[in-house]
């Protein structure tokens, strides 16, 4: 029987839903693993701003970010990474690297750290100080990967964020707001806009925005609380009739997952439309007030996108420089930016570590979902690489030394995981990113940002 094409979709009026991996997609004469894993790695790059408590002098001594031991026998319990313990075998922590391109190069750039750092994180390039349209940084890590391996998916890459990033013009110290708001750069002069509203992401993933439906039709669907699956019932039933029992079950689970996420978005929209006082009154209807709910929705959408191979690349910006958002769910209600300016006091450094721990604590939710989602060679977690870090080190000093950074996932076997690697003093984070890109298949890349060499991610 002719195998089902990997790019098969369920199509209905107003929506197109890509399918998850099904056994029916594997030719009968080939075993599982028929799809070459080398170019199937999913990449998620997560940026958090304001560095970490573990980058301060006290935080280093207390191992608030990097574990004390290098190698495989590291103890995560004092660190902000402790929630990742169940995934330690998928974890590669790289400590003691610097992001020098985020430093000032000229007198007028001194003091502008918050306004240029995010543009540096994934580019490792020094941004041009300008508030005009002549912005300049470098091609970002996610885009180098997407340009090479993302072109045969429906969407080469997507850029998501949690904080408001729609400010225009200049943000401070002569820097365009685009440097603060964008972490993905398709070209040195082409930052990519980021999407904050889960509804917009959902509609983009499932073809609603590309399906030819009118704004009025989409509004009608939203008003009636209908599901995009309502448009696909006959198409799904037709496909299910051609599948074996295991695939039928997998398809049903997948569509239920799509529906569950859509339902959660609808609940958020209904709550925000109800007239109840919001914590974030000026935000779009689709944006949850709860930080963790917002992040989890965004992660769920990424899992769906990976499962259906709509895209293989996400950049995800969790914060915005100088944001004073608070995270009561962390157990500490202080404002983020103010708390990051801890004056070197141990009690305040520990408060900041509580926020760092909370942020990292949202990652296992994503990793667990990936682990529980089948893919050609096992689970999606096996085929994914998550990059997490910040371009700032000790925010109290506004420096870019000893920045927080880790990798999660084995990237289709490219990384062994289960390691804490401490770089020699002065090592550019760009060396690590260069090696990440090479491991992901860009073997011939000679340099990345200010790299001056490679970094062995599988050492020990």
């Amino acid at each position: 029987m002719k195998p089902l094409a990997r790019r098969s979709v369920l199509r209905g009026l107003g929506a197109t839903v890509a399918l998850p991996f099904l056994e029916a997609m594997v030719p009968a004469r080939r075993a599982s693993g028929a799809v070459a894993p080398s170019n199937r790695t999913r990449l998620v790059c997560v940026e958090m701003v304001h560095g970490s408590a573990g980058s301060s002098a006290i935080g280093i001594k207390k191992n608030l970010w990097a574990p004390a031991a290098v190698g495989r026998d590291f103890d995560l319990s004092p660190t902000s990474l402790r929630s990742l313990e169940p995934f330690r075998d998928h974890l590669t922590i790289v400590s003691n690297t610097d992001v020098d391109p985020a430093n000032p190069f000229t007198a007028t750039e001194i003091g502008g750290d918050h306004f240029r750092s995010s543009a540096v994180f994934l580019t490792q390039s020094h941004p041009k100080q300008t508030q005009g349209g002549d912005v300049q940084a470098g091609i970002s890590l996610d885009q180098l990967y997407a340009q090479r391996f993302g072109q045969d998916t429906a969407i080469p890459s997507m850029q998501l964020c949690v904080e408001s990033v729609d400010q225009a013009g200049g943000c401070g110290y002569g820097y365009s707001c685009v440097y603060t708001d964008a972490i993905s750069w398709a070209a040195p002069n082409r930052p990519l806009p980021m999407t904050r509203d889960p509804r917009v992401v959902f509609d983009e993933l499932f073809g609603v925005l590309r399906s030819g439906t009118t704004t009025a039709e989409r509004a009608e669907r939203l008003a009636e609380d209908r599901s995009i699956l309502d448009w696909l019932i006959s198409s799904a039933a037709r496909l299910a009739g051609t599948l074996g029992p295991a695939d039928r079950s997998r398809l049903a689970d997948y569509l239920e997952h799509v529906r569950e996420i859509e339902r959660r978005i609808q609940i958020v929209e209904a709550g925000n439309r109800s007239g109840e006082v919001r914590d974030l009154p000026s935000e779009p209807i689709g944006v949850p007030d709860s930080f963790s709910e917002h992040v989890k929705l965004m992660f769920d959408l990424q899992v769906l996108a990976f499962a259906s191979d709509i895209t293989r690349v996400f950049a995800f910006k969790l914060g915005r420089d100088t944001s004073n958002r608070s995270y009561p769910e962390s157990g500490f209600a202080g404002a983020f930016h103010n708390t990051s300016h801890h004056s070197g006091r141990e009690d305040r450094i520990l408060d900041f570590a509580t926020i760092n721990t909370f942020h990292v604590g949202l990652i296992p939710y994503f990793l667990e979902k990936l682990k529980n989602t089948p893919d050609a060679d096992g689970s999606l977690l096996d085929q994914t690489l998550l990059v997490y870090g910040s371009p700032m080190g000790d925010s109290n000093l506004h420096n870019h030394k000893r920045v927080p950074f880790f990798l999660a996932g084995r990237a289709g076997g490219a990384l062994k995981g289960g390691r804490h690697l401490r770089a020699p003093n002065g090592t550019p984070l760009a060396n690590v990113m260069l090696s990440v890109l090479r491991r992901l298949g860009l073997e011939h890349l000679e340099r990345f940002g200010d790299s001056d060499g490679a970094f062995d991610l599988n050492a020990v």
Partner: protein
Amino acid sequence: MTTMMKATIATTILAVLTVATSVSAQHGGTDAPSLTGTWNMGLQGGHVVPVALVLKQNGDILTGTISMPTQRVGQPVDVSLKGDISHGTLTLTGTVESAKEPTTIGITGRLNDEGIIEGTLAMQGHDMPYTAERLKERK
């Protein structure tokens, strides 16, 4: 020339150089490292605020600017500075003209052995310690 004569001359030259160096350093003269250039000043308020300090040294005379942070985040104002260096201690003063009431800034500091200026910035009755490292200007 005997060996003893050579040694006496060398000792005399060394002594003269030592006195000259000492006098020069006391006056911030030509043998002391020039402070001319851009300094990344870490001003210790509640946290460490990076501030640009640009200096020009001409003999013992110092002129320059400091980009002072304001209430409007990301919009510093440049304040002109004048002062001197004496016995290794730099002293600079300037006035923030754009403030509602002109505010005087006073900066004192010394260059330490590691090439870092350490000192205090006084403004509105508050003394804020700082360290300033020379910026390696890059394109």
